[in-house]
């Protein structure tokens, strides 16, 4: 289980990384924590011409508050995000979700930017970003730009990032006063990719509800959000969520199973909001 031969370049900055990407041309790939990419290379299910190593770019690491938003550098490890007191205090949804993300060895190496850019349909962070209405910052051959998270996920492992475009950071607006959050996932073993999961943020009459491990990507249920806003019960929200959901089965849960679990999650998470503490 050794990867085929590949080239290696180390980038010193985001700009340097983009420059190297263009210089290498065909077969260039960015390497962050490597927790997904290296496994696929080792299994030889993908081949890399040249890896552009981002892990030494210090300017893409760290968590800070900038005005009314929290900014998380793309190369910040899962472990650092989960440990951050700022995240724990101001973005408890993320802190809660991280309890379920993989295992310590993976969290120590894997990065939040890598996870969001890969867009594994069963990952927790893409759904959390949808629920939190995050903005993705990217830097590419055409320069810097910001992408609203709602426009980011397009399909199975397909994102709005263009060829050579690098995810550099995530900007998460601070939840309004009185905002509430809910998170739950159902996995056969702790730390596994879930059979189904749901991340929810509500503020007053507004709500954002994002499923993961249900479809080909993290996906909001706008039907359930609308129902919730118009005062529907958790059971009614669950009913509309599962009716309209675009579902993808896998080895651990068939399409029917996932549809069923989507309803269970909606009911449970919304009930926990009613009884739970505010965010």
């Amino acid at each position, binding site marked *: 289980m050794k990867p*085929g031969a590949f080239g290696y370049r180390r980038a010193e900055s985001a700009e340097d990384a983009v420059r190297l990407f263009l210089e290498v041309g065909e077969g260039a790939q960015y390497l962050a924590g490597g927790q997904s990419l290296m496994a696929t290379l080792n299994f030889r299910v993908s081949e890399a011409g040249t890896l552009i190593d981002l892990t030494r770019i210090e300017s893409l690491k760290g968590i800070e508050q900038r005005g009314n938003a929290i900014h998380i550098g793309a190369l910040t490890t899962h472990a650092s995000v989960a440990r951050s007191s700022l995240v724990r205090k101001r973005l408890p949804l993320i802190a809660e979700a991280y309890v379920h993300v993989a295992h310590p060895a993976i969290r120590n190496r894997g990065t939040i930017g890598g996870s969001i850019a890969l867009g594994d349909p069963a990952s927790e962070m893409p759904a959390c970003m949808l629920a939190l209405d995050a903005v993705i910052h990217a830097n590419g051959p055409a320069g810097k730009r910001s992408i609203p998270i709602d426009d980011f996920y397009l399909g199975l492992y397909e994102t709005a990032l263009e060829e050579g475009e690098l995810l550099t950071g995530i900007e998460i607006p601070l939840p309004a006063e009185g905002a509430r959050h809910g998170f739950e996932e159902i996995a056969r073993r702790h730390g596994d990719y879930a059979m189904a999961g749901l991340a929810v943020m509500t503020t007053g009459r507004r709500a954002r509800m994002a499923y993961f491990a249900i479809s080909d990507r993290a996906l909001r249920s706008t039907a359930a959000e609308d129902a919730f806003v118009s005062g529907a019960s958790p059971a009614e929200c669950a009913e509309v969520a599962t009716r309209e959901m675009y579902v993808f089965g896998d080895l651990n849960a068939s399409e029917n*199973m996932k549809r069923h679990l989507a309803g269970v999650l909606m009911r449970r998470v919304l009930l926990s909001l009613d009884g739970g503490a505010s965010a």
Partner: protein
Amino acid sequence: MTLTKYDRPNSYIGSRVPRPNITRLMAGRGKYIDDKSLPRMLHVVFVRSPFAHARIVSIDATAALAVEGVASVLTGRDIVDVVSPWVGVLTHLSGMRSPPQPCVATDTARWQGEPVAMVLASSRAIAEDAATLVDVDYDPLDAVCDMEEALEPRSPLIHPGYDSNLCWERKVEAGDVDAAFADPANTVVERSFDFGRHTGVTLEPRGCVCEYDPAEDRMTMHYSGQAPHMIQVVLAKHLGIPEGRVRVISDDVGGSFGIKVHTYGDEIAVAGAAKLLKRPVKFAADRLESFQSDIHAREHRVRVKAAINGEGLLQALDVDDITGIGPYSVYPRSSGIEGNQVINLTGAPYRIPAYRGRLRVVFQNKVPTCQYRAVGHPIAMAIMEGVMDELAKATGCDPAELRRINLVPDDAYPHVSAQGMKFADLSHQKCLAKLLDLMDYEALKQERDRLRGRGVYRGIGIVSMVEVTNPSPMFYGVGGAPIAAQDGASARLDASGALHVASSITEQGQGTDAMLAQIAADGFGVDLDMVHVKTGDTAVVPYGGGTWASRGAGIGGEAMLQACKALKAQVLEAAAAVLQAKPGALDIFRGAVTDLDGTERMTLADLARMVYYRGNELPAGLSPEFIATRHYKVSDVPFVFTNGAMASYVEVDTDTGIVKLLKHWVVEDVGTIINEQLVDEQIRGGVVQGIGGALYEECVYSDDGQLLNASMADYLVPMSVEMPDIEIAHVMTPTSTSELGAKGAGEAGTAGAPGAIMNAVNDALAPLGCSISKMPMSPERILRALGTVD
């Protein structure tokens, strides 16, 4: 508890001493296969069939051979010239058939993952690169996967020379089964069970390093395995090398669970390549090929029918088992033993006057299956205990009470079951009573019932079990397999007073060496740190079977006890002559020759130095032998059976199908306990493996025979977070077949846990009017049973 001869102050038998080898292993100084590196060594990577069933039209290795660092590419046709094919049948499993199996496929690949060529290069990475360039032209054939469809007349045939895909069929009948089922006074229930395929997932994957010396025609295999002497015979026979010139060395082995006791084509092909190329060759399986080539186990579909009379006593049992074993019966133990043990062991704890069993062992295009920890037991226990709960439900009897009244009483041994199994020294009644006490059965039932009212679904599952341990020659030797049923031990006193012992049983991480050291120190009379244990080298240790079927302590341990007692007698004879005493008036205690009251007369070191260096000082005519060897086999019975009882307490989330394991209890009778901590951890580890089979582990195949989850991300082994607290207690009924009195401890947990958990889940689901009988009991299967997912 009464004192025994093992309760002397200097006794190590029965004490929880730390394992002597644990410091070395924890310090990272273990010597596993991949740590081995020899001059001029080549690394092998196997090209494995991507199809479950395909004709190999041609193999073109030109591109692979052009890669720098590649020494050779060998195909099945190259290897068959140096390694002859084998046939994996046992003659005492009458009627079993399996065709000759080449170690690397020659014309047809019959499972996805079967080796078809080997690439030898200066590094594993280069060999992997080159392996992708070997161009194999396959002509895919229809794959036969479902075991029932495999037996249908229109099914494609896996072996062209055979008239069907049946490997073996066995029928057994005793007593009037039909009359019992027809009697209107009896209550009759019937259930079907499905058991998924799973595999062993050893921490250290399989592997070997082979070196061949053409000058002396000697083959040495460094081998991660459980039965070095068996592999020695296999190598000699199939490579045509005199057996005495084959040496098999097993240093540290990182887990085996029965996976590493079989003949694997890839491993023997490594020896063939070493002989052909005259260079050392290393093979270390990676995780992907472990899933595709380690033996799988289980995959049974069983129908069971049982009858009890008005008093709740079992009257008859009918078992029909079909099991899929892949395309070949595995050499030399055969793939018939698992099903055979299902037929032999179902109902073993109980008195059952009439029994009918049918077993069909079926070829299919999947990875071969063979003996894996608790061979056949989890199926035999789960189906019987599932039926017991069904009978309890049908008659309104408490499940524990129904078991109690049907168990073979502790004072009724020896007892022969309807299948003809001879049982002795078992303690089912004591174990069940202790289990119910340990778990506080009545309080637990009340808690379960109280919570049901609140919509919390908890269940209790109970299992009584019998396990095959300490097998005699009737297991394999009688069937023509080159597998020793006896084990040998030698004990030698050196000039410093240290005791060097060697044994033919093997250490795979479970503490064999510790157990042997305790028996040796105890039997001879020295401190534990004066004992040095050698296992796992056919050039050094006495001849014997190795460690499998829970035979290490019972057979290897008894041989060690007898060897050390013999050495003690020899040493005392010399000491008596020197000290002018009678041997019977002396003892050995903590490294010194003493009077019977413990008064020290001389140290062993002083005696040994006198004997070894200054023999001139010894009385005339005395020529001491400070080495002794003894062998031991079980002779009067085919097996020394072990027994126990187990219970599981679970909660089922009826929304998600997730089973939460709340608690697990085991009461086990392994006879004499040598090291309680090691026994307890054997049982706990076994329970966890049983939990794997019950809830998580399954080799998932597509209809065309592709293994879909061959990675640690997709194949779910049980992990610590989900494991319950496992409480263990013991009943001790030493076996009367040996002086040591030890029975085997390795099967218990795995044997009973799946049945206990299945019964607990079904007890939890009972108020909802449904049940599940398919393992692993995944969340989706549970929700399908509940009818909430379709």
